[in-house]
């Protein structure tokens, strides 16, 4: 065995180019997988790693829940359940907590977030006195000084450069810059406790503290605090969990299948891409192998020689790939942290990484299997005599291949209603079938070339003669095309389905300004004034919000859809469905875009005007009532309604007159503005820190980025695979091309022939891949669009219905037709023009 490895090692060094190619092909997936795993784990700050950021040097973080009844929490307090819903709401004081933790010193602390401050949708806030030694380590002072007064704050580096900030409590001065070592680029505001956050902006309820205790806060202490309605995050518990940390959910079987499918496809693609290189290497070594056989080497030895080749190259690839992957992964995490991600210490998840390395090694060996079997079967005598080797081997196993393909298609049909993952598993079956069919297809297609022009005829015949190399490359293209088309069609169907279901409640170009919850009248007036100042001359229509009769808390009225009434899937009315506009005739007119006397009359009579037939049943519109404050849960009410036409054909929703809301027993107050103003204004958003600003521009998701990513992956794989095969073809065809040159062929012929071969390989692969990809993609449309989880508008239910199948034709054409043409073009351009040298016997 060692002799074989040494032989393989020498061979690898001798053919440096080919070896480098194979190593690169096999190592690439290893690098990517290892990089992502390492990067992911490094960027993921585990609880233990992140302790200083959360606790500083304190022993525990304690927060009160709404009640003082017992609570059950998990080890880190991130989830807890209140035991007794009937327990009375109560505020726990610091003194009570201190009593529970004898000898402890407590300082108040709070986490929360602000909306719309400093032009950011979301700004994290930490309220803590960073001057206190207990907070040492939580944040690092980078510039300036720490806040020491209620109107002073510090910011994190992304917000550097501002002198003041405006929050809802007022304006504060920025006196310093602090950094969270684990989240260096996350925007954050640090202030003294109680100075910036209002209760509804806090994450941790009414009160929370950091505690410094004489001894560690053990799990028994935590349970004690739990019984009084307090949740605890304790350093000691995190470092020594009471029970082993709960395993992640035992992997669901579909996740296992999904990962298995992905791994299989990646390994398959790698093997197919590296196959041609091994096949060519085998051809060069024929004489060497024949000599070994003549010296007494058995078939097993010959196979072992070629497999050793795969072992050496696969091993090198695995090692190099793993090393490179770890470095890249760390670099990736570091780069992401500059953009606001987290950054933990370098963490390499060894088991998965070693798994990837092992797969790389396996790929290398697998790619060498077919050539190894061929090596054992070669006709020793013929090779030693220098006779032309028989190129008439059996053309693969077409029967088996066809059977697998049909089985795969059948399985796909069966998997339609089961789930995406199973459809992919069926796709794998079909792909393997096509791989087995490929040699037969290659052999067959050579017969049909009689009438082609010379360079193409030569290209296809030559490709067909070197069957292993060609079939392998074409299969690689096929597998890539299948996957890309399947995803592409699936995503696009999903996108079209979502897009078509989007029925905005206001015409395109409507600008909407709404107050956040709990905005009082004075503030609302100030907001209106700011709006008027910033957008002079724009006519706004005021709209109202419902408020609960007693509490004055905001009440949200949302459109309710009956699942059984929705024809295919229930429409998505977006913001205006969640919160139906309430107002007067002017609002009605704005939403209708015109005067509609009939609708206006009904509106005046207190009827809701509805723009969508599906929403009205028996002349009534149904609404769900959600209250922001305490009180009973969501309820469903009915309002008499009439149908009318909206401003645009693709507009839905409804509008309620104030009278109808009052009829339901609620009051209203003015908190919203609508206008037709189709220009987006970021300045307005920033200026109105207190309000939500939204411009209706239609369905806002894009599918293009996903399709481009898929196309890029296809481009890479298809061009890469054909490039490999074409380079090998160029080397193999040298003697033939020398003959052509001798009898008067032009150098251009060489280009055309190689371009033709590239196009043939890519074309054959793309066409076969199009078949399996289309089948899979269409099948994917079912689980992606047919099964709906209509949670928001009604009780969450799966709604199996007809699927939307949308095919992105330009994308498909680009992949199936464009890429092979591009491959041919690139191959033609990349061949050097020098005619092959005449290598005749020297006389």
């Amino acid at each position, binding site marked *: 065995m060692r002799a074989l490895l040494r032989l393989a090692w020498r061979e690898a060094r001798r053919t440096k180019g080919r070896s480098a190619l194979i190593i690169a092909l096999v190592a690439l997936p290893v690098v990517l997988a290892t990089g992502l795993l390492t990067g992911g784990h490094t960027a993921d700050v585990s609880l233990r790693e992140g302790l200083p950021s959360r606790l500083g040097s304190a022993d525990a973080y304690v927060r009160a829940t709404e009640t003082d009844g017992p609570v059950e929490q998990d080890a880190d307090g991130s989830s807890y359940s209140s035991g007794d819903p009937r327990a009375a709401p109560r505020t726990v004081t610091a003194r009570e907590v201190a009593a529970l933790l004898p000898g402890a010193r407590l300082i108040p602390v709070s986490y929360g977030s602000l909306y719309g401050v400093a032009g950011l949708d979301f700004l994290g806030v930490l309220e803590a006195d960073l001057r206190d030694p207990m907070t040492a380590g939580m944040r690092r002072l980078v510039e300036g000084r720490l806040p020491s007064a209620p109107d002073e704050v510090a910011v994190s580096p992304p917000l550097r450069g501002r002198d003041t900030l405006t929050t809802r409590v007022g304006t504060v001065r920025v006196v310093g810059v602090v950094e969270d070592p684990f989240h260096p680029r996350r925007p954050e505001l640090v202030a003294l406790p109680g100075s910036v956050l209002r209760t509804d902006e806090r994450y941790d309820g009414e009160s929370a503290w950091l505690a410094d205790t004489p001894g560690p806060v053990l799990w028994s202490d935590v349970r004690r605090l739990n019984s009084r309605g307090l949740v605890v995050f304790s350093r000691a518990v995190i470092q020594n969990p009471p029970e082993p940390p709960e395993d992640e959910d035992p992997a669901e079987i579909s996740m296992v299948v999904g990962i298995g499918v992905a791994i299989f496809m990646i390994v398959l693609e790698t093997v197919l891409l590296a196959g041609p290189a091994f096949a060519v290497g085998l051809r060069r070594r024929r004489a060497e192998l024949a000599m070994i056989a003549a010296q007494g080497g058995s078939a097993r030895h010959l196979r072992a020689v070629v497999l050793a080749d795969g072992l050496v190259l696969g091993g090198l690839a695995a090692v190099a790939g793993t090393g490179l992957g770890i470095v890249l992964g760390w670099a990736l995490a570091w780069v992401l942290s500059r953009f606001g991600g987290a950054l933990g210490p370098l963490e390499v998840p060894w088991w998965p990484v070693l798994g990837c390395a092992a797969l790389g090694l396996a790929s290398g060996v697998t790619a060498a299997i077919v050539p190894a079997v061929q090596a054992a079967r070669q006709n020793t005598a013929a090779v030693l005599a220098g006779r*032309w080797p*028989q*190129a008439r081997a059996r053309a693969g196993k077409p029967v088996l291949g066809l059977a697998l393909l049909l089985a795969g298609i059948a399985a796909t049909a069966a998997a339609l209603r089961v789930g995406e993952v199973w459809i992919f598993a069926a796709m794998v079956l079909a792909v393997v079938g096509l791989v087995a069919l490929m040699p037969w297809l290659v052999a067959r297609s050579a017969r049909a070339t009689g*009438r082609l*022009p*010379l360079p193409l*005829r*030569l290209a296809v*015949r*030559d490709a*067909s*003669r070197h069957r292993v190399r060609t079939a392998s490359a074409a299969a690689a293209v096929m597998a890539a095309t299948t996957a890309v088309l399947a995803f592409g069609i699936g995503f696009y169907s999903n996108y079209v389905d979502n897009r078509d279901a989007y029925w905005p409640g206001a015409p395109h170009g409507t600008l909407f300004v709404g107050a956040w919850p709990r905005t009082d009248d004075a503030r609302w007036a100030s907001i209106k004034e700011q709006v008027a100042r910033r957008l002079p001359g724009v006519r706004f229509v005021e709209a109202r919000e419902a408020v609960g009769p007693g509490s004055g808390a905001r009440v949200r009225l949302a459109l309710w859809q009956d699942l059984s009434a929705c024809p295919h899937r229930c429409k998505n009315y977006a913001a205006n469905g969640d919160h139906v506009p309430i107002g007067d005739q002017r609002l009605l007119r704005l939403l209708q875009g015109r005067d509609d006397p009939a609708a206006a009359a009904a509106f005046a009579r207190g009827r809701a005007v509805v723009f969508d037939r599906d929403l009205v049943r028996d002349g009534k519109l149904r609404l769900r009532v959600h209250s922001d404050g305490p009180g009973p849960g969501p309820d469903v009410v009915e309002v008499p309604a009439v149908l009318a036409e909206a401003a645009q054909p693709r507009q839905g929703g409804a509008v309620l007159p104030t009278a109808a809301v009052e009829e339901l027993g609620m009051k209203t107050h003015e908190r919203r503005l609508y206008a037709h103003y189709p220009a987006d204004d970021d300045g307005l958003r920033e200026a109105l820190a207190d309000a939500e600003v939204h411009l209706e521009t239609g369905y806002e998701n894009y599918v293009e980025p996903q399709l481009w990513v898929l196309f890029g992956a296809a481009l890479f794989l298809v061009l890469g695979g054909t490039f490999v095969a074409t380079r090998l073809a160029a080397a193999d065809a040298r*003697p*033939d091309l*020398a*003959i*052509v*040159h*001798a*009898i*008067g*062929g*032009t150098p251009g*012929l060489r280009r055309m022939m190689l371009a033709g071969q590239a196009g043939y390989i890519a074309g054959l692969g793309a066409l076969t891949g199009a078949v399996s990809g289309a089948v899979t993609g269409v099948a994917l449309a079912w689980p992606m669009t047919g099964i709906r989880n209509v949670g928001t508008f009604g009780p969450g239910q799966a709604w199996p219905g007809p699927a939307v199948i949308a095919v992105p034709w330009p994308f498909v054409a680009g992949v199936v037709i464009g890429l092979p043409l591009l491959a041919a073009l690139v191959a033609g351009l990349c061949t050097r023009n020098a005619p092959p040298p*005449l290598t*005749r*016997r*020297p*006389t």
Partner: protein
Amino acid sequence: MTVVRLANVSRSYGEVHALRNVDLEVAAGRLVAVMGPSGSGKSTLLNLAGGLDLPTSGTVTLEGVDLAAVKDLAALRRRSVGYVFQDLNLIPSLTAVENVMLPRELDGVRARQARAEALAVLEEVGLAEAAGRFPDELSGGQRQRVAIARALVGERRLVLADEPTGALDTRTGDEILQLLRGRADAGAAVLLVTHESRYAAWADRVVFLRDGEIADSALLEEVR
């Protein structure tokens, strides 16, 4: 009428002089054989005569045209000069008839016509029934005959053969020479390189090369 003439031709590669001051003429209807030990420059002579190589000094004239002045030597090889080598003559992925039509196709002749011409020549060399077979289905002699057919297709005036009988037995070798002789008699000029005197004897003139120079030549007197 002279088809190819080498006038005071020399070819050297750096320090090595492959040919020195060679004068050679091959007229139409004549078969000229070149003999010599290995290293004497036989193949170089052949390459120069066919335009596959250009001399360092001296001129090579083909049908009156100085090869040094020709821009498209490849066209020359397609139309005027036919080549037969000892081995590796045929392209394995093409059938016999496709190999024979190759120079015509390269010249732009339509496939149908080229195929007809090729079949005619294959008929001449007696291989019409093997037209659709691939080279690895043919014997060595048959392959050489196909190669000769390819060198003949399209009424070429000059046929250059470099050890065409190298790998063949006597009987087959004689057949090959018979073909070449027949072609010469029909009006082509044939320049043959061989190391077997028996085959050289088919020629009208045998030229002996020694160290890149012509040492002697044996001329068969005209009897006609």
